[in-house]
């Protein structure tokens, strides 16, 4: 019987080894270990053995069954692994084919610039103020110290609708309107928006363009505050190692008036084609709010002072991105707009 058992084991192990897949291996299990299989038969037949041999024989049968079962399981695991591998193999794809496109659009470059500027000033405690694009002469000029007949009105030829109403030539009327609304309280605002001037459209002129201006009014606002604010702005917008310099200039609504240059971000100041060999690039105009403007806005220039600054997002975008023609901003060519998607820095 022992010999019979040994032979059975050899047979079973042989059958396990030659089973090629999970199904045939299951057949092997049923055949040898099933209820009607030879091992069960052997166990049933043990009753015929003498009592003293039974334990030894039982142990032997269990041993064989254990060995066969272990072999079965290990073979089963191997076969399953093989089956999975085969399936995976069959399922493999060409990973170099392009992914399914997520179709999204993106911002216009001017919006990108304007939001960047807005967000910087919001972080400095500014509110965003807006106003109408069609304005009264009063807010566009007179409230800004540009009475009728002022020579500086020459500088900005305008689109009039009536003698008294025009398309705003700058976003400054929003400053005048804000002062009226704030009724003598201190404030910090940034005013982005579209403006219009009587210019023929060419590479450097556009009859419609955008502007963003800032205004801070309060007690004891100083020119040094303007300089510090602009310095931070320049570093945020054009890089931490930018220097700024102020040059005297003239705007009717500020006194003193300055223009701000930044050290060239392309050459760092040694001179190149971007900065026209000067090392400096003109970015914006600024100044201390003219007392007449404060007065007309309902602020007492003996108590309050303020600073203002203004810049052109088109110019900044052209400098930053190396755009050569202002008309690109208004033709809305997707081959142009589509380039302003990715993050920087």
């Amino acid at each position: 019987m022992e010999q019979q058992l040994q032979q059975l084991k050899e047979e079973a192990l042989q059958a396990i080894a030659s089973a090629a897949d999970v199904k045939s291996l299951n057949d092997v299990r049923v055949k040898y270990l099933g209820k009607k299989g030879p091992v069960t038969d052997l166990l049933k037949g043990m009753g015929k053995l003498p009592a003293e041999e039974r334990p030894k024989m039982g142990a032997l049968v269990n041993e064989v069954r254990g060995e066969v079962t272990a072999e079965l399981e290990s073979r089963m695991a191997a076969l399953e692994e093989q089956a999975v591998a085969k399936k995976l193999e069959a399922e493999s794809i060409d990973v170099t084919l392009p992914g399914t496109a997520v179709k999204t659009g993106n911002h216009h470059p001017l919006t990108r610039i304007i939001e960047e500027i807005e967000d910087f000033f919001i972080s400095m405690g500014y509110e965003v103020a807006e106003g109408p694009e069609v304005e009264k002469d009063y807010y566009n000029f007179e409230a800004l110290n540009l009475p009728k007949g002022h020579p500086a009105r020459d500088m900005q030829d305008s689109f009039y609708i009536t003698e008294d109403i025009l398309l705003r030539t700058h976003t400054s009327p929003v400053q005048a309107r804000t002062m009226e609304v704030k009724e003598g309280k201190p404030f910090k605002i940034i005013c982005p928006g579209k403006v219009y001037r009587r210019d023929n459209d060419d590479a450097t002129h556009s009859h419609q363009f955008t502007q963003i201006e800032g205004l801070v009014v309060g007690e004891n606002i100083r020119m040094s505050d303007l300089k510090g604010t602009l310095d931070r702005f320049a570093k945020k917008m054009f890089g931490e190692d930018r220097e700024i310099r102020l040059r005297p200039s003239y705007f009717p609504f500020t006194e003193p008036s300055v223009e701000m240059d930044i050290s060239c971000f392309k050459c760092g100041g040694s001179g190149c084609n971007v900065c026209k060999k000067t090392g400096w690039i003109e970015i914006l105009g600024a100044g201390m709010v003219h007392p007449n403007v404060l007065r007309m806005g309902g602020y007492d220039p003996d108590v309050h002072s303020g600073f203002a600054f203004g810049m052109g997002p088109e110019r900044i975008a052209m400098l930053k991105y190396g755009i050569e023609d202002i008309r690109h901003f208004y033709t809305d060519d997707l081959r142009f707009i589509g380039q302003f998607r990715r993050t920087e820095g």
Partner: protein
Amino acid sequence: MKVSLNWLSDYVDYEGVEPAELAEKITRSGIEVDAVDNRSEGLKNIVVGHVLECSQHPQADKLNICRVDVGEEEPSQIICGAPNVAAGQKVVVARPGARLPGGVKIKKAKLRGEESHGMICSLQELGFDGKVVPKAYASGIYVLPEDARPGEDALGLLGLDDTVLELDLTPNRSDALSMLGVAYETAAILSKDVKLPETAHEEAAEPASGRLNLRVDASEANPLYAAKVVRNVKVGESPEWLKARLMAAGVRPLNNIVDITNYVLMEYGQPLHAFDYDRLATGEIVVRHASDGEVIETLDGTERKLEPHHLVITNGREPVALAGVMGGANSEVHDGTTTVVIEAAYFSPASVRKTSRELGLRSDASTRFEKGVDPNRVAEAGERAAALMADLAGGEVLAGTVLFDELDKEPKRVTVSPDFINERLGMKIPFEEMEEILRRLQFPYEAVNGQFVIDAPTRRVDISIPEDIVEEIARLYGYDEIPATLPVTESIPGGLTPYQAKRRTVRRYLEGAGLYQAITYSLTSESESQKFALETAPVTRLLMPMSEERSTLRQSLLPHLLEAVTYNTARQTNSVALYEVGSVFLGEGEDGLPTEVEHAAGAVTGEWSGGGWQDGQKPVDFYAVKGIVEGLAEELGLSEKLSFRKGEMDGLHPGRTADVLLDGERVGIIGQLHPSEQKARDLKETIVFELNLQQLLREETEALIYTPVPKFPSISRDIALVVPKAVQAAVLENTIRTHAGKTLKDVRIFDVYEGDRMEEGMKSIAFSMTYLDPERTLTDEEVSEAHKRIVSALEAEGAQIRN
């Protein structure tokens, strides 16, 4: 303003400062120097020549063979094509090896068989602008005065050994429209003195008042009129130095009398005029306003019709000059003039501006009067011109000045404390430094009780308030010295308003949905301005448009947006999805201003699927764009309030247009372009939408509070209906919602079929309903009950139920 540094050195000593350095200093302290033009740069080997003989070239009619003494032992043979070349002239010769502007090199050459050793030059060939070259030499060579020595360097004679600074003046600094003004500025920067021009001259015994009567009938427009009379002048060419300076300043020399008035204009910034005394004919000058329709022929040969507010100089009978703008042809100085009246006057800026604008006539004189000339230098400029006429034209200046003077010449007094200056700047400039700057500026001041009491010089019309002094101190002390600080104010949190924040959400959403942001022009043609408008109002039209195409403000964003779409498709970008957020302008709102309403619009054409290798080609359709609008409503929390109905609009497909309603009010439109519109714009199927953003964003959205995730399962039931094609899905859905009871959670359309398998004129539409009770598990019976109600309600409305 062009500033010759040679000329400037008459008034201020800038020795030791290189032109480029001087330009930089001037720029940094207030006046932008646009260009530094070294006029002799690149010029070499250009000398005076004496034309000894001049004969016609045997082979060429238009060429002359000249023998020219250029200061060497042997004369040179030079071929010259200029019509005005002649023996005896002193000329400018570019010798072989010479360099001319633009890198031109002069070499020995053979012209039609004759050798030419150099070139006789015109002023243009030497780099002069044709506009400043004296007319006599405009189309030929330049002829030097007889005393020029052959072989001498010609650059000095022509004033080319000079550097010219081009100043870009801001409108407030009209004082720098004169050499003296620039001299004061330079002196302040370099801490130097200013040397004034010589005005002293001899006087004849005869008084000017004996020859000339003066009456001013318009003292407000002309508060000061000073006339000098100079007799026995000899009109002729000006000396070389004067012509050179005028040309450097951009003025064309004419004759010595006119040149002197222009020279003094440039020197003092005070426009002068010279009349021929005999042509005046009456010995009288009357300044008055023109009579209506009165006519004057100005020096440029144009007849100008005048109006009563134009100020004229007359001889008592008829106008002889347009005051402050231009002289009259009838009293012009000419070659035979012997007696000259010099006019030095103050004309009010407003009067001159008005006249010059209305007549479209701007001159060096009018630009200066418009800005206001220095009241204290008017008469002095007249004296200076008289002195120069005595000196350069052999004239005898009659005694005295014929004068009308009611002009206020008082300087403006400005009182400002050093503390105020420092507070405004955020600096601590010592008192003494401020005093030093005021001295350099030549601003007379007194220190009274620690305050500066300053009498601002009348040449500086821009100085009138304390802030002006703050600027003067700051710019000369140096803006680099200002520290960088931040404002110390009440801390107010910054940020976007809810509207602004939501507008950013809208943009982000539309971009996420695949649309690119466009920015188009607000101005369009009047005929396009109301196309696709959600709401029309009177148009807002410009008074003086530059073109009809940009004459009127838009009332819809779509026309320009569609133009942008066409622009792209015409450039092989076949799939275009654009949106714009911008204002439309509805005429005649509050205060006479149009009402500006912010809209969001979009236009989509071409493929809408991913367009990759996996997807089929699926062109955009109405529903794709409607989905974008619905998604936007969801983003804004407005899904419940938004609905759609069949809409209508010119230019849109009548069967494929929907009105967008917010709480039942029309706030937008979605539609496919009408086929004829598509054809006209050269577009394939294009779907557009436009929404009144202001109305959408005005809605305050409710605070977001979470609903518990259901603990109990939901149950779904589907139903398929057959209905006539015209029955709208929204009507069926509404019936379902009305009859389902309150456990209905959601209704979804999952299939619509209108194909061949349907009876003619019918369609099949399938809904899936989801039922849920958050409190308990629903029973099948309850749901079947609800479903039965729905079925009978739908059947009652004529729908057939399919199984």
